[in-house]
């Protein structure tokens, strides 16, 4: 860890790591919100988007942030106060934990767990609890329906997500995200030791499954039944206002940032770019690697948001049928084919 | 389709085309003397039936004459009122004589009528392109008529509106209640004796002099009618 060079005591290192994630979450969310939610969707819809706050409206997300935190924190009378208040924090906590394993450079990772991707996907499932807590505690029929729909959808689409990742894990031979990046960097194409190959090419089916499942995990259109704006107002978030609503919102975009980061790491090569190992000061490697990872995840996030603003939404039963009857069989087939080819070409 | 200028009175002023005449004949065959008067004008067949035969008439039209499209059902209050008089908050003011001296038949429209309230229902044949307007008198004080919801489900809302606006009881309707107005509303607004408050306070603006088009003499000096460009 590059911090080891600074010889900081362990508690300071921990504090630094926690602080780094706490900074990345809102910054990542704000970047996505500005570029994609404000600007990209506006250009798609032939309008300009926010232009007033800062050059080309770049400070608008900060304005939105401030607007939310200065609002009144409303607790409707009939809600279950503790559960209602805790729900956004549960979701944010699961997002926080996902950032722990994403590597931004050869040595820039909060904690290089051996069970990296397994850990990341497992903790991202914890957000379902937060959604159910929000839906139930709101004492509002719309929220309850939204929460139940969300829970069903999130659980259904975790399976194709996992199974898509299994293909990559088999290809790389490890669950650790750093080793997956190294595997892509050193991938031998038909025995030739070239610049490596991102897994999007051998695992193209898995990549498609991952992007679709990520779209559903983020409850984005076409899978946004839980927050169907024209039907349930705001679904499980209806009764929230002020800071808590901001936390939901930020959690959604921070999760999008994290899932795009994981997708970029698994399929697009992560922080690796040809020539990274020839750059000498190790901190420069980390910074450049972080920048490359950022660029790759923005490309993936672009696709996710582009789809979000183009398609209509699927109905709940169609959504479930799509996951169980189409995505999971395809994912299982993908695993089978990967396994067979891996054994056949091993060595 | 015969589309002649309106002739006064219930007299057919032009030869009736064959499908309309066939419709009239078949309806008369089914209703006998329940069919009180008829007229074919403006491309439509207008028939007034006796109130007791209202349900039968609509049923015959639907089942045997192919008029399966339910256009609308509404009512009309033929009582004459003088809207040009100013009645500024004087509830005891006598209503003045009805304006103009129109021919006696205007009071009850095409195919005549006997009572103050009349219900009309228009049905249409989408294949033969033939329209039939049935009318029935329903009474002066407490108007009642049979409901045709059993024949045309769409009549539900139209009858509710007619009840709410005119106070006509439709016997057999599953639940006559307000459609447009709040539940606590009292009165039946479209009746001629239900005052429109805006006109109680301010007289009908048609009495105001309006200047004519450039080059035309002002319409003003006469009995206060409007010129053709009244965009007021």
């Amino acid at each position, binding site marked *: 860890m590059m911090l080891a060079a600074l010889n900081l005591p362990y508690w300071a290192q921990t504090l630094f790591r926690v602080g780094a994630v706490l900074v990345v979450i809102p910054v990542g969310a704000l970047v996505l919100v500005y570029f994609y939610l404000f600007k990209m*969707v506006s250009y798609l*819809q032939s309008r300009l988007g926010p232009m007033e706050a800062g050059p080309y409206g770049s400070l608008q997300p900060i304005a939105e942030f401030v607007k939310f935190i200065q609002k009144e924190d409303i607790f409707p009378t009939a809600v279950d106060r503790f559960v209602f208040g805790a729900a956004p924090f549960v979701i944010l906590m699961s997002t926080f934990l996902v950032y722990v394993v994403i590597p931004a450079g050869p040595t820039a990772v909060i904690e290089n767990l051996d069970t990296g991707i397994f850990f990341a996907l497992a903790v991202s499932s914890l957000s379902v609890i937060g959604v159910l807590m929000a839906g139930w505690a709101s004492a*509002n*029929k719309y929220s309850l*329906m939204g929460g139940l729909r969300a829970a069903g959808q999130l659980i259904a689409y975790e399976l194709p997500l996992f199974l898509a990742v299994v293909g990559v894990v088999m290809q790389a031979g490890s669950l650790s995200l750093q080793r997956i990046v190294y595997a892509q960097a050193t991938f031998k194409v038909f025995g030739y030791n070239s610049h490596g190959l991102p897994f999007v090419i051998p695992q193209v089916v898995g990549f498609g499954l991952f992007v679709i499942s990520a779209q559903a995990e983020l409850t984005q259109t*076409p899978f*946004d039944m839980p927050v169907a704006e*024209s*039907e349930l*107002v705001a679904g499980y978030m209806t009764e929230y206002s002020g800071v808590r609503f901001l936390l939901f919102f930020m959690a959604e975009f921070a999760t999008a940032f994290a899932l795009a980061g994981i997708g970029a790491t698994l399929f697009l090569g992560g922080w690796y770019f040809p020539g990274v190992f020839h750059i000498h000061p190790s901190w420069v490697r980390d910074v450049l690697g972080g920048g490359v990872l950022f660029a790759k995840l923005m490309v993936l996030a672009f696709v996710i948001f582009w789809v979000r603003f*183009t398609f*209509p*939404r699927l*109905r709940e039963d*169609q959504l479930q049928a799509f996951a169980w009857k189409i995505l999971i069989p395809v994912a299982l087939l993908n695993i089978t084919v990967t396994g067979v080819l891996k054994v056949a070409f091993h060595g | *389709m015969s*589309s002649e200028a309106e002739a006064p009175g219930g007299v057919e002023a032009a030869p009736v085309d064959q499908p309309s005449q066939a419709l009239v004949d078949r309806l008369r065959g089914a209703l006998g003397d329940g069919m009180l008067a008829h007229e074919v004008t*403006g*491309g439509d067949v207008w028939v007034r039936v006796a109130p007791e035969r209202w349900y039968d008439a609509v049923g015959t039209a639907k089942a045997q004459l192919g008029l*399966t*499209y*339910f*256009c*609308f059902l509404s009512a009309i209050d033929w009582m004459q009122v003088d*809207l*040009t008089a100013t009645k500024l908050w004087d509830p005891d003011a006598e209503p003045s004589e*009805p*304006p*103009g001296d*129109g*021919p006696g038949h205007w*009071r009850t*429209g095409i195919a005549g009528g006997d009572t103050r309230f009349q219900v009309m229902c228009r049905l249409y044949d*989408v294949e033969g*392109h033939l*329209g039939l*307007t049935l009318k029935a008198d329903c009474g002066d004080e407490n108007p009642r008529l049979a409901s045709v919801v059993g024949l*045309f*489900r*769409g009549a539900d*809302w139209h009858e509710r509106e007619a009840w709410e*606006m005119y106070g006509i009881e439709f016997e057999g309707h599953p639940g006559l*209640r307000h*459609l*447009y*107005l709040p*539940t606590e509303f009292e009165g039946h607004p*479209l009746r001629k004796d239900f005052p*429109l408050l*805006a006109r109680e306070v301010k007289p009908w*603006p*048609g009495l105001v002099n309006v200047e004519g088009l450039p080059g*035309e003499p002002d319409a003003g000096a*006469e009995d206060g*009618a*409007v010129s*053709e*460009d*009244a*965009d007021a």
Partner: protein
Amino acid sequence: MSITEHAKAAYVAGQSADARINFEIEAEGMTLNMGPQHPATHGTLRILVRLDGEQVIWAEPICGYMHRGYEKLCEVRDYAQVTTLVNRIDWLGSFANEVPFVLAAERLMGIEAPPRAQWIRTLLFEMARIANVSLFLGEMGAQLGALTPVFYAFRDREYVLNMIEAVTGGRFHPNFDRIGGLKDDLPKGWIEETKGAMARLREFCDEMETLLADNRIFQERCRGVGVIPREVGLEYGVSGANIRASGVDWDLRRDSDVGLAYKHLDWRVWTHPDGDSFARYWVRLQETREAIGMVEQLVDGLPSGPIRAKTPARIRVPAGEVWVQTENPLGEMGYYVVSDGSPGGPFRCKIRTPSFSNVSIVPWLLQGTYVPDVITILASLYFILGDIDR
């Protein structure tokens, strides 16, 4: 006395007239109250829905939040003043509301508008249809979750509204029809610009077809949802594109001659056998293209002549009773006008609006559907609140 279902609903409706309150009636199922302020209903319409899980077992729309009392108001206005009121019934295609009323008054007076006026009336009528239905094409996508096409609809509709404004002076409420003809003739250069606007709208229709009608998810959401069988639709008085999507080949522009110029044009009536929400969308898409074609034919074939018949300075309509109907963008609109011969307004003016009948089928149509399908069905029926409530 036993309490009927309707009595219960009336009690409840009376209790919560304004608020978006959720409540339980002690019967099976959960009662959901959609509206009157709700993103899905186009205006202040309230729909009481009783659910069993996600399925609707009973539904009732409650209208009247926008009731303005048009029929009473028409009785106290002069014939020339009524067009101002009547513009505001269907406010998206507002010229179309004036036309049947003016035709009714002309018929009572025995006046016929000159051919040029009739052609331009038809022209503006079809442009009102395009303005109205093009919004529907984008907005149905918005109800289903596709947020982008509605912006294209608003943007491209502006071309038509600009053309209408250039002629009449008003984008939304033209108030241009007069008894005997129209208020003014077309401005110079208008025909060329209209052709350009129509070309742009053709592209818009193609875009909507690609984005929505051909979209797999849109079809999944709409096909088989909210099927209106032909007989039931006719019983309820469903008209316009809704009933043509159930296979009924009936279009008042072709089948009833009220004096407009349709018989001189080359066009066809579109029907679809399915009767589901997708059919209604598809029929309206084709009708928009057809209307664009009609506008192009109309601007090419306009006869010359006066724009207004000689009418007396005082509009005094002789006694009589008349019914005139036209094929409005939303369906069949008709005016039943009774005149008593006095120098005043109509004695009785019954306005038969298409959305009133189209929405009366909603209780029957929503039984057994899912909550998301409720939105799809309401979106595909395409009603406008001013049309329901008058």
